[in-house]
């Protein structure tokens, strides 16, 4: 037997106790039973308590003996628990087109690629090959998609035609609500360019020192929300801070400045999103007091909407289009599930419940459906459900 074979034993069930061990333990218990017996027997006689019927004891032993004890191999449950919420599932970031007719997402299933399908799952196709799984951005009219390829920003029609490089460098493209401009980031510095590629200009000084993980315009187009990597610690994927600034680059504010530093350990926050009215921002706090937080754009009135249960991990908050609800993913039950709550944190309920990963929720523009990513059937797929959690089905 080689060493690897020996390792494999770890996941196997261990053998039942030997008869000898059981006999000795039983004898030890019997002697313990003896000790208080005199006193208890006296008490029983004093109070005239009825003796337990022997027949009932015998029946109970019989039934008890039929129970199957767990095998205690380190099984799928442990592996699912540890690996159940991979940081990067192979299918990621489903994004609804603004008209609600199509869904774009990225996957590394057949090489890294950007996919588009109809909202019912039909017409699935690869529209672009990419080198990095970054979230694509729909144009407000739903006709085009901006995306990142090879560290450059590209624009194409939603069917993959007319692909055009917009900038020589750039990450996290975000389309302005009027459809005229695209903002993007190059190593911690924000830029904007007209959607036709003209008018390239710098918005800010260098704020962070790594890649941007997300960038979004406020619904009225007057502000930008950006998650920037800070501190170039090796292997630190989550040393991120959340900033809000005016669309002309002025008024930069670190929303996470009061949430503590990012070294060592996780950065303070991730996954920032605008409320539909543009007045508030939801995000996930990572460093301590984990939860889905909501703050005003100015950073005031910051509140943890999920103070309980303590110690659970959260991700991907997303507002319903009417701004009344927030869906999010959490590992509060042991692995990642989708939850729903009112925008004030009340009425929390789980929409999914199983041992698989369920994450990355996204509302349809009409607020009727929620897409999410799950590996409940063995591999990661895009799923859709009604906003109350009913009618869950795979789209891919």
């Amino acid at each position, binding site marked *: 037997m080689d060493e690897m074979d020996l390792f494999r034993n770890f996941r196997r069930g261990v053998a039942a*106790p030997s008869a000898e061990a059981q006999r000795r*333990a039983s004898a030890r218990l019997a002697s313990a039973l003896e000790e208080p017996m005199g006193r208890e027997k006296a008490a029983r006689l004093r109070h005239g308590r009825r003796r337990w019927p022997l027949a009932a004891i015998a029946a109970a032993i019989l039934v008890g003996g039929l129970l199957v004890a767990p095998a205690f191999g*380190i099984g799928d449950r442990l592996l699912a628990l540890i690996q159940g919420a991979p940081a990067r599932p192979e299918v990621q970031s489903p994004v609804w087109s603004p008209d609600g007719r199509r869904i774009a997402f990225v996957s590394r299933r057949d090489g890294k690629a950007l996919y588009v399908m109809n909202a019912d799952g039909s017409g699935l196709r690869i529209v672009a090959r990419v080198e990095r799984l970054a979230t694509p951005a729909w144009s407000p009219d739903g006709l085009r998609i901006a995306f990142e390829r090879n560290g450059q920003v590209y624009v194409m029609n939603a069917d993959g035609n007319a692909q055009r490089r917009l900038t020589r460098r750039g990450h996290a493209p975000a389309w302005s609500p009027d459809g005229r401009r695209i903002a993007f980031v190059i190593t911690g510095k924000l830029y904007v360019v007209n959607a036709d590629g003209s008018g390239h200009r710098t918005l800010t000084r260098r704020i962070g020192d790594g890649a941007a993980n997300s960038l979004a315009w406020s619904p009225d187009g007057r502000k930008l929300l950006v998650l920037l990597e800070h501190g170039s610690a090796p292997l630190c994927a989550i040393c991120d801070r959340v900033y809000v600034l005016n669309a002309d680059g002025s008024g930069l504010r670190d929303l996470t400045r009061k949430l503590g530093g990012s070294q060592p350990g996780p950065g303070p926050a991730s996954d920032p999103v605008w409320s539909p009215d543009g007045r508030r921002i939801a995000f996930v706090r990572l460093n301590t007091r984990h939860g889905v937080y909501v703050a005003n754009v100015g950073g005031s009135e910051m509140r943890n909407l999920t103070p309980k249960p303590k110690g659970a991990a959260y991700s991907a908050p997303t507002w319903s289009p009417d701004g009344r609800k927030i869906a999010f993913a959490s590992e509060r039950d042991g692995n990642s599930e989708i939850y729903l709550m009112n925008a004030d944190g009340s009425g929390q309920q789980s929409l999914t419940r199983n041992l698989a990963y369920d994450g990355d929720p996204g509302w349809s523009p009409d607020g009727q459906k929620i897409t999410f990513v799950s590996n409940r059937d063995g591999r990661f797929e895009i799923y859709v459900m009604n906003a109350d959690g009913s009618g869950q089905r795979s789209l891919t």
Partner: protein
Amino acid sequence: MDTASSDADYLACSLHEPTAFELIFDRHFGAVHKYLHRRAGRELADELAAETFALAFARRESCRASGSVLPWLYGIATNLLHRHRRAERRQLHAYSRSGVDRSVAYEDEAAARVDGSALDARLAGALAAMRPRERDVLLLFALADLSYEEIALALDVPVGTVRTWLHRARLTAQRELAAAEADVSPLATTGVDLNG
């Protein structure tokens, strides 16, 4: 037959009829022994399983379980294991290195040698790297199949603490598994880059 309610019944009954506790022993000795065997090896499991039941009997009045008493028994067993932390760590390190802990006997020795993966060795390394309480909650959850509430009952801590420890245990495990992955990657054959 509702076995969950019977457990508590037997326990209550054993307060005035000690022999009723033997039913608890008959029903749960195998599970408690296997749990200890998995964590500390067969020899220590023989000793600690016997001690668990003797101690459980002595403390039966303090049991707060309303259904099955198994979580409570696992809690006692887990606390007893703490006296033997070094034995458990030694066993985990043995798995994660090239050798194997021969004190573990398997249900199916033949099958145990046929399939599986090297992940198990890395898993052992990750478990060894955890703080004892983090390892406790992870193994009570994953091996003993207890719910958060049952683990809280077993270890006599608030359920929020269970969540925190479990969360930390998972982060440790993920970090250790990723590190182990990085260690072996130069030997891996070239293939599709799976990193997004």
